[in-house]
């Protein structure tokens, strides 16, 4: 998809330079918006889009390591930018950048959501899966232990079988994705994005261990830490979740994702030797 294809209307390429008129690049954002909304000026729209593309690129790069080409994310984010420009109301008294950022982010998240589910999972189960993520976290804190299926069912007011199904449906989700299901409303979902930028001091401990196998380098620092804590320090998922500052369900997903990555990396080696991944 090309950016120009999303604009809907053909761009007038005839030069309209007038020495008595200021260049578009010299116009204020407010004036460009006025021209877009009052005069339906396509060139003003293009100018404003161009000015805001660095914002789109910046936001897209935050998702760079999540398995999708950044260029695709920029294209998707650009759609969000265009929607924001078209819908922006100057009378609201907020800056366009303030208004555009969540719209761009929303478009990128929606893209990850749509890419994420490997098989068709009923929306109700997706939503319950997202709800369980929060419920497990809350119950763990309240009960001071990992909750049982019955605890979760009671908290969500659903049957225990539904909880099992929802947990199982979560396995259908591609853990490389940023978005872990939900209704698509930005405020009603748990997202890895919420944790970007969090640092964990104990990463250094893992770095000091000898990661002999190249396969480990394929993992992110946090994933290496989680594997180390779970399989070499004997910590439970609940304990790891508390330490790393993410939910227990998220720990579970990251463990599975990391093991899958290692398994894929191990295939050629396993065929040649008894193999294993040093940690």
């Amino acid at each position, binding site marked *: 998809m090309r950016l120009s294809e999303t604009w809907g209307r053909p761009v007038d390429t005839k030069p309209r330079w007038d020495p008595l008129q200021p260049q578009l690049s010299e116009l204020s954002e407010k004036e460009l918006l006025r021209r877009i909304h009052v005069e339906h000026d396509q060139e003003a729209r293009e100018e404003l889009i161009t000015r805001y593309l660095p914002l789109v690129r910046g936001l897209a790069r935050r998702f760079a390591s999540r398995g999708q080409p950044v260029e695709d994310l920029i294209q998707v984010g650009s759609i969000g930018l265009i929607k924001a420009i078209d819908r922006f109301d100057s009378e609201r008294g907020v800056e366009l950048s303030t208004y555009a950022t969540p719209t761009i982010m929303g478009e990128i998240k929606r893209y990850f959501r749509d890419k994420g589910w490997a098989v068709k999972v009923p929306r109700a189960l997706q939503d319950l899966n997202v709800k369980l993520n929060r419920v497990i976290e809350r119950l763990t804190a309240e009960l001071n232990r990992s909750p*049982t*299926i019955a605890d979760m069912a009671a908290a969500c007011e659903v049957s225990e079988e539904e909880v099992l199904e929802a947990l*199982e449906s979560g*396995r259908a989700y591609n853990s490389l994705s940023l978005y872990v299901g939900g209704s698509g409303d930005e405020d009603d979902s748990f997202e890895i994005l919420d944790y970007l930028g969090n640092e964990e001091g104990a990463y250094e401990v893992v770095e000091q261990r000898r990661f002999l196998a190249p396969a480990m380098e394929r993992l992110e620092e946090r994933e290496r830490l989680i594997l180390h804590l779970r399989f*070499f320090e004997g910590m439970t*998922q*609940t304990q790891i979740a508390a330490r790393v500052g993410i939910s227990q369900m998220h720990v579970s997903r990251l463990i599975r994702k990391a093991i899958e990555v*290692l398994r894929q990396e191990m295939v050629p080696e396993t065929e040649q030797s008894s193999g294993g991944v040093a940690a």
Partner: protein
Amino acid sequence: MDSDTVCICIPDKEVFIPLLRLVLGGMAMRKNVCYDDLDDLQLAVDDLLANRRPNGGQICMTVRVEGCQLDITVEAVIDDELCKRLEVASVETATEEEPAVLDTCRLLHSLMDGYEVQELSAGRYSIRMTKTCG
């Protein structure tokens, strides 16, 4: 002490593997096993079956619950080399000096209390894993 046993056999195809997880979850649920332990059990079975060598046969899983202890026996055609290593590792104790290697042996060692391997026929193995929950 009362014990309950559930057996399930599925075609050795990826699409049926989730059924094993659901049965495991169902048994764990009835014994009030916490989510932490349930995920460990499911991950252990998943990882073991990731090493299977499908031959058009069946995977059979037996889950036996007695008190707080769960016994899970998986019968399938599984990578020979892995099963040989599992056999050795199941009776060995890792030492601090050994390089820490994250493989299926290590995973089962971490996730379960114990496991044993038995060859049933050429390439077909029975892996019995135990875990005390709660």
